[in-house]
């Protein structure tokens, strides 16, 4: 299994978790640590890499390009949707810059099949 997860830092306080949920994408709402979540799916993490810097760059770039194309986007999406999307992305950027939102690459294998090279 391989994927990217947006998550809070390890052991966030209740306030940090709430703030992260408020600022982050709708999917950021789990209080379960990544390792526990992965294990509960029957997988074991074999590689993990923090990609928050890239996440920050991408989020910032999306905001900037959307700002640059504001007129076109407002015309096509409607002003309400445009402003809503900008707000959401700004919230995510704020969450990243406050250290509340991180993104990681996680690679995991099913332990009992690891030696057979199957089930990634």
């Amino acid at each position, binding site marked *: *299994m*391989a*994927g*990217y*997860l*947006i*998550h809070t830092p390890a052991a966030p306080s209740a306030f940090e978790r709430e703030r992260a949920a408020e600022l*982050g*994408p*709708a*999917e*950021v*709402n*789990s209080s379960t640590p990544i390792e526990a*979540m992965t294990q509960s799916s*029957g997988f074991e993490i074999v*590689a993990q890499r923090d*990609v928050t810097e*890239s*996440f920050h760059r*991408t*989020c910032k*770039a*999306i905001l900037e*390009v*959307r700002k640059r*194309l504001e007129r*076109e*986007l407002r*015309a*096509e*999406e409607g002003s*309400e*949707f445009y402003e809503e999307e900008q707000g959401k992305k700004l919230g995510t950027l704020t969450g990243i810059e406050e250290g509340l939102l991180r*993104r990681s*690459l996680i*690679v995991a294998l099913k332990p009992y099949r690891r030696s057979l090279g*199957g*089930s*990634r």
Partner: protein
Amino acid sequence: MASKKIEKGSAYYFQEKYSRSLTLAGGKVERAVLGHEVGLNGYTTVEQAQELYDYLELSEGDRLLDVGSGRGWPGLHIVEKSGCGLVVTDVPLAALRHARNNELSRHLSQEVGIIAADGRNLPFRSGSFSGVVHADVIC
């Protein structure tokens, strides 16, 4: 017209989110920042999708499961690169319709299954897939 207040993270929230088609300008944003255009709602660039492909080491004959696939990214990218089969799953039907359109636009020779399913309770037997991929869906 006043917009309906939709609870963030609710099923209706995601259905609404995916009901919108990708606009021309929206496509320009995606291409400029992420390097592709599928109506993405996440942050996975082409380079990062390629990295997932590298880690999974799939090839023709394998079958990949993309959990919470949205409009089909990054699963469709991995299929194009590896030649493996693919099943995409998500809950909002609007997302899955887009995934089907994205699949068709790529003229893939591989089989792509599109199934409405919640990642917390997938309807597949253990061992059905050679690999699993997800992006910005589990948090």
